[in-house]
């Protein structure tokens, strides 16, 4: 519970910093005051969508900017021109995509085509299993009548 609250505190502080930044300025923000020493923050926004990555000295700043690009590209492929609502309503899918790109804090895939391949497979598996469950359910429902 405490950690979730901490998370929300952090999100609020980041929001506070980003919302006050002008359009034309750089995408890096000094995040040490929010996240502690050696924390860096890079963000990028596309219309109303903001993507924020927090990282440490083990990552390259420009590579992180590229990573946001990879993530957005993948989402674009997923949702055909991703918009705010896609992200709001596809909570699970966003996690699927993210899990393909980052695992345990490490970047494991940077090719959006590869990511999409895996995401498609997973989506297929999900719908197959839920289709079965709906069928069995309706059968059992019919029987119980």
């Amino acid at each position, binding site marked *: *519970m405490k*950690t*979730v*609250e901490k*998370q*929300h505190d952090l999100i609020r502080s980041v929001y506070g910093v980003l919302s006050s930044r*002008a359009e*034309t*300025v*750089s*995408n*890096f*923000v*000094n995040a040490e005051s929010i996240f502690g020493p050696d924390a860096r923050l890079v963000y990028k926004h596309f219309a109303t969508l903001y993507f924020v990555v927090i990282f440490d*000295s*083990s990552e*390259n*700043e*420009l*590579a992180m*900017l*590229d990573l946001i690009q990879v993530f957005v590209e993948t989402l674009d492929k997923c949702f055909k021109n991703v918009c705010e609502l896609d992200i*709001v*309503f596809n*909570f*699970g899918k966003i*996690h*699927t995509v993210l*899990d393909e790109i980052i*695992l*345990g*804090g*490490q*970047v*494991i*895939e*940077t090719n959006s085509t*590869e990511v999409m391949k*895996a995401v498609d*497979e*997973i989506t297929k*598996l*999900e*719908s*197959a*299993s*839920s289709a*079965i*469950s*709906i069928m069995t*359910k309706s059968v059992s*429902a019919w029987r*119980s009548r």
Partner: protein
Amino acid sequence: MSIMDNLFQRTLEDLIKGLRLQLVGESSFISKALEEIRREIKSTDPDTKSTALQKLTYLNSIYAVDMSFAAFHVAEVMGSSHFSHKKIGYLAASQSFHDATDVILLITNQLRKDLTCGNQFEVCLALECLSKIATLDLARDLTPEVFTLLASTKIHVRKKAIAVLLRLFNKYSDAVKVCFKRLVENLDSSDPQSVSATVGVFCELTSRDPKAYLPLAPEFYRVLVDSKNNWVLIKVLKIFAKLAPLEPRLTKRVVEPICEHMGRTGAKSLMFECVRTIVTSLAEYESAVKLAVAKTREFLIDEDPNLKYLGLQALAVVSQNHLWAVLENKEIVIKCLSDLDPNIRLESLRLVMAMVSENNVVEMSRVLVNYALKSDPEFCNEIVGYILSTCSRNYYEIIMDFDWYVTLLGEISRIPQCQLGEEIESQLIDIALRVKDVRPRLVHVGRELLIDPALLGNPLVHRILSAVAWISGEYVEFSRNPLELIEALMQPRTNLLPPAIRAVYVHSGLKILIFCADYFLSKKEAIISELPDPSLPAYTDHKPPSDFDHNKDLYVQSADKLADEFHLESGGETVSLGEISSSVSSGKKMALQSLFSLVNLVEKALAPFLVSCEVELLERARNIYAFSELIKQELHGCIRTTESISEEDKQKNYGVIKAMQDALSEELVPVSISAQERVHKPDGLILNENLSELQLICDDLQLPLPAIFSLGDRNSKGRIVTSSNIQEKGDLPLSNESTSLLVEHRKRHGLYYLPPESIDVLSNEYPPANDSKSKDYLNDEALDLAILTEHSLSSKKKPTHNKPRPVVIKLDEAVEVRDVVECFEPKENTLFGAVRDVLHGGDTISTLPQSETSVSGSRRRGKERISGSASKNMTSTENIETGKSSIRKSKTRLHGKERRHRSPGRNSQKILKEKTGQVAVGPLTEAAETSVIPDFLL
């Protein structure tokens, strides 16, 4: 019921839609939804249950709703046979489970089952979950399964297994013994994704403890040379940035390929990483640094603010060893000071400050202060903060002209939005104490601030005013016009100050008043006792009090005249007796008049404080009030005839004033914080002994303690009283007595005094005051910073200053260095130990706490076997447990191999093929620290 639930259950989408419709009262909607979820999650229908869990997970992540109550249900849903349910369960677990979750103990078998499952996506679910929540227990129990996956033919699984290792190593360092070899083998993999994941893991590991991974340098080197993948190259560069400082021979090898990458690549990210690696870890290679700086310049002139920002950062790193790099780009850097982007402005400010040296600090500071005046408050304070910290660095190292610096501090104090009052306050006082020569100027600067009523209205300046008020009181002898200072300290607007600072004001007022009174009275004594003046007897002997008014009018003079007189003598200039006598006749009456008005002013100003609720103020005000009464009496004594009041009374009053002045004129000097430590305890002294007998001894001794005790020989230090060589008869022996006592004490107990380094504190001579200011600098306002940096930085020679730098008293420099304590983190040590064991093959006992039971002990042995054995087709735990090959045997074998490699005339080609084994398990126990990297690389 389950059907109804199922049919009418709100899906996650319904929940989100509902939430979006709530304009207000979101929380009541959430608590209603939560009620539903609590009911649904207990359902026996897996679909209902998982949907409920999905909604809960959503609410948890977006609205911070507590989901710890559902931990058991999470474990249930994880175990579902349907992939979609399982996925919901795993997401919930990743999100909500942590080390303190009890249920985590129940999911070990589920994870094991999924890790060994045929469906690669289910395996991945388990790996993803493990990478986030693995505890010590989970890591220990599931290491064999992850080990097996490291060799998976499915790349998708293998790369995730590799990435999970980082978490396993961190939680359970013995996992290193099992998995390290296979991890290293993956560096060699033909599949780029596995290599990428492996390099990523090593990058993280190396950043924590570079030394342990030095033996792997040949592997990394090969990746650096062969890889075409920018992500991999960036990670390898980061590894080398950590390794290079540890091994000079390594730097020699990597500098060339890194430069090649830097020249060849089109990717800015890789280029920047090359630049950063060179400037941080390979800074001694001039040619490489030159290339890197050239690339940095490309970044700096780019339109993209990101590149500009990073370029400035790289320049900041390079500036530590190669200041020329900043100089080469100074125009760009200075232009960035007025950039729109606050990040860029800040970085360029840092660089500009890096260019500041003792030669250009004056001009640079002026230009920067002008920038500060034009900037927004935030950046203004950044600039001022940097100026202050740069100038005060290492005991004001770069300040040659302290008069200039304190004037600058005064100027900065007047910047309305300056929020660094506290820092300025402490620097002003610090300088006042450390640098004697600057005190006259400090008092002058303080006066300018004190007499300005407008400053009192700005709370940000109050701390500074407090400092200058203290300085004015403490060093009042340097003031041109003490009367004006008192007026400033007592002005009505001081009621805007907080009580603590007003107390400082009042106390400083007291000091100045005492100084004035003492000055006047000592002068009077001088006139009466030493310099009988023809006009004097008429005044002192025959004029009745009523005539005083008349006389007074005659002699009323401006206070400024008096001030000038003060200044003359306080400046330590020799004033001939004749001059004194001529000025005294007129000055005396004038001074008398101004002293009267001064005392009246003080009494009037302090009247409200006599009933103040602030004790500090109340007490100080009462002190000064009582003192002013005393002065009045004394002054009245002067107005009447010296004979009309008893000699005794007069002597008493004057004695008190004198004593006060003596007490206050004692200089405050810094004392080393380690002064006490330097005192050696004499032999045979028991510090805790009861000292009650001391009283008897003291009675016998009958020390000739004077009633008024002056600690230092201050009277000979250019004080007014002594500068005119006039001393009150009764006071002289006292002072001499105490001085001789002090000298004797010092002789006997020399070690209790400050060491010779601070002897100048006690020396009786002030170095000559800095009156002739060097004005050979250009005074042009529009002078560009670029020009400033030009001559001063490129030229190594010291400038010729017109005057010597004043002495800055420093203490305790050695102590600070001594205080550095090395510390280690125990957990990292454990991992370090494990890695070292694997890499060096040392048979050292694991550093892990021996909490494992014999069962896990045997399992560990089993794991060791598998890590040593070459057979890779063992996939099940049973196989591991029954593995027959002995680690010791394989080690010995490798050891033998290694011996062969080390023999002269070796075939490097062959070694290259086998180095994985050598590096990973080959025992290098006999290898000295210096040759951790096999020689063939170097």
